[in-house]
């Protein structure tokens, strides 16, 4: 087990190193520069020159790359280009917890609703409960999150005349963002659980368990569910990473002061350090989440360790 974890960990570190390198050079390949005179017309060129100097943008790219690694190893993600008075570290430290909180609730909610829905659906295959659940799940995977958010917003603000722009002071302000974030995952988890549950229930080992006189509840809850849950665990890594790092759309619509919206704005702002900071943060987060879900999978399914 320990060897398996170490192996996965090494692969994760390698992934992050390559990710940083790729992201760094990709970003610098972007046409224009944050301080090019052509784009910042109302700033005197000599000031732009000095700014570029202070961020080290005039030096050879390889040197910048090494420089970046040096500060990175000290745990510094650098100073934002857009907001010269704040460090990327502090932006992440301020906004990530908000996203993580909303996202965390959404993850738990998705699992608590999605898995039971899938099981119920599989148990009542072809009956009304199955049909209703799968209709809901099909809507869930077909309707994009942003469309769902817009519709929810339109419904509550336009039809019910509720004010939902205030964020942060009441618990019920969590409801809509969490609902929007977990809408797709619930549908996906329910569908996945249903199909793997159906497959598991038809397996020979389920017949063996029944032949041993295991009760129907234990057949489903113990023998089938443990087998059916593995695809959901695999999906859990990317899901947690995606939800905890925030969604641009949901955060914008519901005025959630999270990290998600910095994603898009920093790229179009060409805020190099901010982009790098978020890419690294996100990358590390994805790698860790995948690692955890891999370990979880190996705990559930002893065959995993052998195949990888």
């Amino acid at each position, binding site marked *: 087990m320990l060897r398996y974890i170490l192996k996965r960990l090494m692969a994760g570190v390698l992934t992050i190193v390559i990710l940083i390198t790729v992201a760094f050079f990709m970003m610098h390949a972007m046409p224009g520069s944050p301080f090019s005179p052509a784009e910042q017309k109302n700033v005197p060129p000599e000031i732009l020159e000095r700014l570029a100097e202070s961020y080290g943008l005039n030096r050879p790219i390889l040197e910048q790359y090494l420089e970046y690694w040096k500060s990175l190893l000290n745990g510094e993600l650098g100073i934002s280009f857009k907001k010269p008075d704040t460090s990327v570290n502090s932006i992440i430290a301020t906004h990530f917890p908000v996203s993580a909180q909303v996202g965390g609730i959404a993850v738990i909610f998705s699992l608590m609703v999605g898995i039971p829905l899938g099981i119920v659906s599989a148990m009542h295959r072809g009956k009304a409960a199955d049909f209703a659940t799968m209709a809901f799940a099909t809507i869930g995977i077909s309707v*994009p999150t942003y469309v769902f958010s*817009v519709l929810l917003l339109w419904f509550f603000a336009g039809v019910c005349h509720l004010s939902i722009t205030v964020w942060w002071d009441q618990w019920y302000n969590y409801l809509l963002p969490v609902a929007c974030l977990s809408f797709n995952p619930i549908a996906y988890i329910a569908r996945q659980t249903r199909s793997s549950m159906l497959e598991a229930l038809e397996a020979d080992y389920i017949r063996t368990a029944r032949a041993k006189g295991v009760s129907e509840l234990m057949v489903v809850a113990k023998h089938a569910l443990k087998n059916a849950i593995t695809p959901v665990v695999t999906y859990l890594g990317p899901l947690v990473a995606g939800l905890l790092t925030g969604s641009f759309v949901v955060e914008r619509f519901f005025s959630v002061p999270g990290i998600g919206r910095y994603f898009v704005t920093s790229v179009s702002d060409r805020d190099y350090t901010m*982009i790098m900071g978020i*890419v690294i943060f996100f990358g590390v987060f994805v790698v860790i989440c995948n690692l955890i879900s891999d370990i979880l999978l190996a705990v559930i399914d002893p065959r995993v360790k052998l195949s990888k």
Partner: protein
Amino acid sequence: MTAIEPNARALPEQCAYSDLPSELFVMDGNGGEDEQIVRPSTTYWHDVWQAFRRDPLAMGGAIFIVLMGLCAIFIPMVSPYSYDGFFPLIRNQGPSWEHLCGTDQMGRDIMIRILYGARISLTVGIVAAVINFFIGVIYGGISGYVGGMVDMVLMRIVDILTSLPSLLYIVLIMLVLGSNVGSVILALCFTSWIGTARVVRSEVMRLKHSEYVLASRLSGATTRHILFHHLIPNAMGPIIVSTAFLIPNAIFSEAFLSFLGIGIQAPMASWGALANEAIPIMMTSPHQLLFPVAAICLTMFSFNFIGDGLRDALDPRMKH
């Protein structure tokens, strides 16, 4: 003998077994050879088509997509309206007989804009799916078939690509190449083939140790022959399903990019852009939001139903 047809109904029912006429007990050699196959033998793809045709949701989805495609191609040719322009007198009108879906802030007909959007969405969806299909099959096929070190390296590359936040490279590509259909497709194709590649890889790995592949290799088949004549065709079911689900994903992503304002630019109308434009005025004229959103949702539904139907039809285990 000839008086009695070999038919159960001709049997004298009132007759006791021991009293049955003796001509019934003459060996006529009529057994043995006449094997009748009651069910006509059908090919795999014929079965798939039959199963798919019987799925009302999948067929409904397919019909909807075809209709949508035909409308998107032909209606703009004959319609008096254009997707572009400025008509101050008819701004923000609700649905009417002249403008079935109403008009937008510029007085443009929303239905024609949705149909132009359908051209973009369907093109993006189908082209992206085709490109993904080829990249995925080749990448996954090589990785699964060669295995070992090559597989390790290829799979690590895939791992890294999936760790990249998709928005980052999509936005980068859009900025570098400009906002047009081509760059949207390129941006979408950057990583979405990975799912297909993984499916192909695992299928190929599963099949490459089968006996018919061994037989083929023993009879001197080349690697390429084995890969493209044995492995890929046998893995076609899961590949088609994963490709079918790529289409709605691509349409979804394109609409999302336009919705963010970094996709296809005005005055070209993409569904996401239409929805985005309508958000500030959704309280006063919700139809401007609801029609494009309905177009997105119905298309997504249709493609997902088609995908589900294909999966059920291609997977013999689902047949009962």
